[in-house]
C-alpha cells in the first residue's frame, strides 16, 4: 500500500528548464520525509505539485489516499501547507488570519473562531492575538503561518523551508512544535537546505538535485556515504606540521591531508568527541601548539560534494540569501568545532 504521500515519475518543465525530472517519493503514514537540496533543485516545485498548486506534466501523485490530479479539492481538505514565506495577511490580526483560513476550510464562523483561539494558545500567540500580524516578529509570523496550516489538523502536512531566516531560538521552538505534531500522527514532508534540520526532524531524507532524487536514506546512512567525521586542526608553527601529521595518522581512519600554506591538517575519524580529546592530549604531550582544532561533521555541502561531485549551487536570484545562509552555516560549524 502506498504511503500517505506518494509520487512516481513527477515531471515538470518551465520552458527549457526541467524543474522536475522524474521525482519518486513514498512517505509512510506518521513519518517525516526531509527533502534536502540546494536552491533550484526542485524542492519547492515538488511541494507545489503535491499540494495542487502546480500541475505536473506527467507522473502520479497520491496524497492521503487521494489522486492529486483527479481529486484536487479533496486533497486540499486533507493537507496543510506552510510555504517559504509566512503567508499571513499582515494587516489582519493573528486571530482574524486564523479565523479566515478556518472559514475557507469550510468551517462555520463559530467553529473557526473557536479553533483560532485554540491555535493561538498552542502557539503562544494569545497575547498578540488581536494585534495586526505586521507587528509580529519573524518567529511569531512563522508560528502564525504554521498555525494557519494546522487549522483543520490535516493528516498530511507540507512545509517548505519552515525555518529559513529564523534565529536559533525560534528555530528550536519551531522544531519542537513540528516534533509534537508528528508524535500526534501527522505525516510530514519538509524541505530544507540544512542537513542539521533534516537530521533533527526527518525519519528519512531524500536528496534532490536537478529535479531528481539522487539519494535516499536515514541521515546516518547518508552521512556514512559522505565519509563521516573528520578531525581538522591548524598548527601554530609551520615546522610542526610533520609532528602533527604523525599524531593524526595514529588516530585517523584514512589519509591525512595537509594544506601547507594554511597549516591545516584533516583526517577522517570515527570515535567522536572522545577521540578528539585523545588527539588533543597527544598533541599536548608532544608539545605541538595548535591554533584551532575541531571535529567536523558532514554538511549539506559535503553530502552534495560526495553525491554529485559539485557543491550545492545557488540560482542567481537567491545568491544574496544564500550568501547569508553560508555565513550562518560557517558560524554554526564554528560552534561545533569549539
Amino acid at each position, binding site marked *: 500500500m502506498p504511503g500517505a504521500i506518494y509520487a512516481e515519475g513527477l515531471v515538470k518543465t518551465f520552458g527549457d528548464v526541467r524543474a522536475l525530472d522524474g521525482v519518486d517519493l513514498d512517505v509512510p503514514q506518521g513519518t517525516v520525509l526531509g527533502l534536502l537540496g540546494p536552491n533550484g533543485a526542485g524542492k519547492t516545485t515538488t511541494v*507545489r505539485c503535491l*499540494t*495542487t*498548486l*502546480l*500541475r505536473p506534466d506527467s507522473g502520479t501523485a497520491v496524497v492521503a489516499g487521494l489522486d492529486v490530479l483527479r481529486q484536487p*479539492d*479533496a486533497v*486540499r*481538505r486533507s*493537507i496543510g*501547507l506552510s*510555504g*517559504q*514565506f*509566512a*503567508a*499571513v*495577511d*499582515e*494587516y*489582519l490580526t493573528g486571530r*482574524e488570519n486564523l479565523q*479566515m*483560513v*478556518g*472559514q*475557507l*476550510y*469550510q*468551517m*462555520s464562523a463559530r*467553529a473557526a473562531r*473557536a*479553533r483560532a483561539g*485554540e491555535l493561538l494558545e498552542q502557539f503562544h500567540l494569545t497575547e498578540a492575538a488581536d494585534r*495586526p500580524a505586521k507587528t509580529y516578529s519573524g518567529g511569531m509570523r512563522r508560528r502564525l503561518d504554521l498555525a*494557519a496550516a494546522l487549522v*483543520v*489538523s490535516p493528516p498530511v502536512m507540507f512545509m517548505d523551508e519552515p525555518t529559513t531566516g529564523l534565529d536559533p531560538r525560534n528555530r528550536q521552538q519551531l522544531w519542537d512544535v513540528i516534533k509534537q505534531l508528528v508524535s*500526534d500522527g501527522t505525516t510530514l514532508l519538509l524541505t530544507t537546505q540544512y542537513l542539521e534540520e533534516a537530521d533533527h526532524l526527518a525519519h528519512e531524507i531524500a536528496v534532490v538535485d536537478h529535479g531528481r532524487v539522487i539519494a535516499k536514506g536515514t541521515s546516518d546512512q547518508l552521512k556514512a556515504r559522505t565519509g563521516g567525521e573528520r578531525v581538522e586542526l591548524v598548527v601554530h608553527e609551520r615546522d610542526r606540521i610533520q609532528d602533527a601529521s604523525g599524531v593524526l595518522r595514529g588516530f585517523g581512519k584514512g589519509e591525512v591531508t595537509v594544506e601547507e600554506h594554511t597549516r591545516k591538517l584533516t583526517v577522517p575519524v570515527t570515535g567522536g568527541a572522545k577521540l578528539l580529546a585523545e588527539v588533543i592530549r597527544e598533541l599536548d604531550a608532544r608539545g605541538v601548539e595548535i591554533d584551532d582544532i575541531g571535529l567536523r561533521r558532514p554538511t549539506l555541502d559535503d553530502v552534495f560534494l560526495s553525491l554529485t561531485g559539485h557543491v550545492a549551487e545557488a540560482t542567481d536570484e537567491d545568491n544574496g540569501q544564500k550568501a547569508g545562509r553560508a555565513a550562518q552555516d560557517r558560524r554554526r560549524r564554528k560552534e561545533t568545532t569549539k
Partner: protein
Amino acid sequence: MSAATDTLRTPAPAGAFGRSVRDSLVVAKRNLIRMVRIPEVVIFGLIQPIMFVVLFSYVFGGSMNIGGTTSPSVYREFLMAGIFAQTVTFATAGAGAGIAEDMHKGLIDRFRSLPMARGAVLTGRTLADLVQTALTLVILAVVALLVGWRTHTNVGEVLAAFGLLLLSGYAFTWIGALIGLSVRTPEAATSGGLVWLFPVTFISNAFVDSSRMTPWLRHIAEWNPFSATVQACRQLFGNPGVSTSEAWPMQHPVWASLIYSILIVLIFRTLAVRKYRSATA
C-alpha cells in the same frame, strides 16, 4: 487535538454556489478590514478625483464649448459625469495592485491550497473594491455639489446613474484582477493598471465634446464603453452636453453601458479565474 475537532472537520452545508458566495464574502471581509486599517489607500483614492474636479472645472471651464456655450458653470455640470466615471475605472489599479501583492507575499498560494471556491479570492477582492468605489462616489458627489454641480431629474434616475457607475467600476476591477495576476510585482500592477486608463478615459466624451474630435478619433470615442457610461449618466442626471451622435451607444447609452459592463465582467472574470487557477508567485 480537542474534542471539537470532529465537528470542525464537517464542512458547512452548502452547494457549489453557496460555497462560492460564502468564500467570496469571507475574502471580501478580509479586504474591507485591510481598507479600514490602511485608510491612506482610500484617502489617496479620493484626492485624485477631487483634484480633477477642481482643476478641470476652474482651469478648463470657460474655454470649453459645450452645446454652444463656454460658460464655466455649464462645463462644471458637464464635467461631473466624466469625473465620476473616471473615478470608478481607477479602482482597477487598486484591485490589480492588491492581487499582485497577495501573489508576491505567498497569500495566493495559501488560498489556492485551501478547499475554497476557485473564483472567491478574486470575487472577494472585487466586491471589497465595489464598497470602496461606492464610498468614493458619495464623497465625490458631495464635493461636486459644493462646486456647483446639480442634477435636474428625479431621485430614481440619479440613483440609476450611480448604479451604472458602480457596475462599470465593478467590471473594470476584473480587468485589474487579470492585470494583477499577470505581472510580477505590485508596482508593475499599479502602473500597468493605470497607464491604459488614460487613453480609455481621455479618448471619450468625459472631458470634452467628442463631436468636435477628428472623425476617426470621434468614432473611437463614441464606441468606447467608457463613453457610454458617461453619456448615460449625463442623460440620467439631466446634465448638459449629451451627445446627439448617431452611434448606437450614444443613442442608447443606458443599455450600452449595461451591456458593455456585463460583457467585461463575463470576459475578464473568465480569464482572471483561469489565470488564478494556474497562478504562480
